[in-house]
């Protein structure tokens, strides 16, 4: 994990320049998916449709932020040896709450997300941020870091979800966007986009574009 942790410097109010930076950094320069290579699993599995991608993104944002907040509050009391277990317990507690919420208010969507809500627990973004940031930074900053990383994850998910839904089924959020006349002219939905290989290739291309613009390359 190549996550960077900035040393805690205290100045400004609740939203001083440092705090803004904590939120803005993971959106582009230090994006959890494209740069830190965290949380890839779910970014591919839930993006066949945009609404699934959005719910998942929001879920990860909330879970990361809350888990960061909790862990950062108790960070000085966690024995170093069992910190992974403590982190896992806190994260699964938060995820259970989110899962019960989805089951209560968005039952259909929670059925479609199937095991992937539970898999937020092992989403590397959550664990990665806990390890790299929350364990060494104050609660409020960690909370913002969680929000920032969650949003950085959310927008990539939204882009992948949009492209896959439009190309794969001709719809966006369930509404038809590719006009019927195109189908009559011989246009066919690209079935590959809904399947696994399409997701891999698409994410590869997005990473390529993001890195070409931000000028980052490995080795």
């Amino acid at each position, binding site marked *: 994990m190549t996550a960077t942790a900035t040393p805690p410097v205290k100045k400004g109010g609740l939203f001083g320049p440092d705090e803004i930076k904590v939120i803005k950094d993971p959106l582009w320069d230090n994006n959890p998916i*494209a740069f830190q*290579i*965290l*949380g*890839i*699993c*779910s970014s*591919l*599995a839930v993006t066949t449709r945009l609404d699934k991608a959005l719910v998942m993104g929001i879920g990860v944002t909330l879970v990361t932020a809350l888990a960061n907040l909790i862990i950062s509050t108790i960070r000085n009391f966690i024995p170093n040896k069992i910190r*992974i*277990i403590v982190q*896992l*317990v806190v994260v*699964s*507690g938060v*995820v*259970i709450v989110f*899962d*019960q919420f989805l089951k209560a208010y968005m039952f259909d969507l929670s059925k479609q997300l*199937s*095991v992937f809500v*539970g*898999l937020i*627990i*092992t*989403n*590397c973004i959550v*664990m990665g941020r806990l390890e790299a940031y929350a364990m060494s930074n104050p609660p409020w900053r960690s909370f913002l870091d969680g929000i920032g990383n969650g949003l950085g994850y959310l927008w990539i998910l939204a882009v992948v979800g949009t492209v896959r839904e439009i190309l794969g089924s001709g719809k966006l959020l369930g509404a038809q966007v590719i006009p019927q006349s195109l189908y009559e002219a011989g246009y066919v939905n690209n079935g*590959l986009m809904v*399947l*696994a*290989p*399409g*997701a*891999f*290739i698409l*994410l*590869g*291309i997005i*990473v*390529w574009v993001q*890195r*070409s613009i931000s*000028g*980052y*390359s*490995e*080795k």
Partner: protein
Amino acid sequence: MTAMLAFSDEGLLSVLLKSIFVENILLSFFLGMCSYLAVSKRVDSAIGLGIAVIFVQVLTVPMNWALEEFVLGPGALAWAGVPDSDLSYLRFLTFIASIAAVVQVVEMAVDKFSPKLYAALGIFLPLIAVNCAILGGSLFMVERKYDFAQAVTYGFGSGFGWALAIVSMATIRWRMRTAHVPAPLKGLGITFITTGLVAMAFMTFSGI
């Protein structure tokens, strides 16, 4: 997705083949991507991690099956005199705890009985606790309502499928070192695209 259908009464061979090839846990469900991307740079470490995952998966899936059957599921506590209990909301917490415990025990056992293997696997063993393929395997087992024999088979099959994918990817990446890849595409980008092609190849198994 057809994969979401309950197929609890299928044969063991079919569960095995399906979990290795057709519904490869990595290539069609995207589980365990993080360690897959991080460790597939070298063939020997990929093989080590692959073996460790098979091992842990074979232990945890049946174990979580037992937990689900006798403690967590609706009415599962009937043997203890509590017939209408439903602890399924504790599933995530229990599963992840049991996985972490198994990984810890495996780590200690390997260290005691085969220090050589321990040195080879060393850093990867603790990482397996947060590998989504392991938790995902257990959750899929519950969702598909496998019985015990199927759970054991599924545990082995999904672990083996994961190992197969990471080892083949590591060998591909090893060869790709000498290829000329555009700088921003290097590393993550090209690995994704290659994985997409491998996944496409695995899709041809779906007729079995």
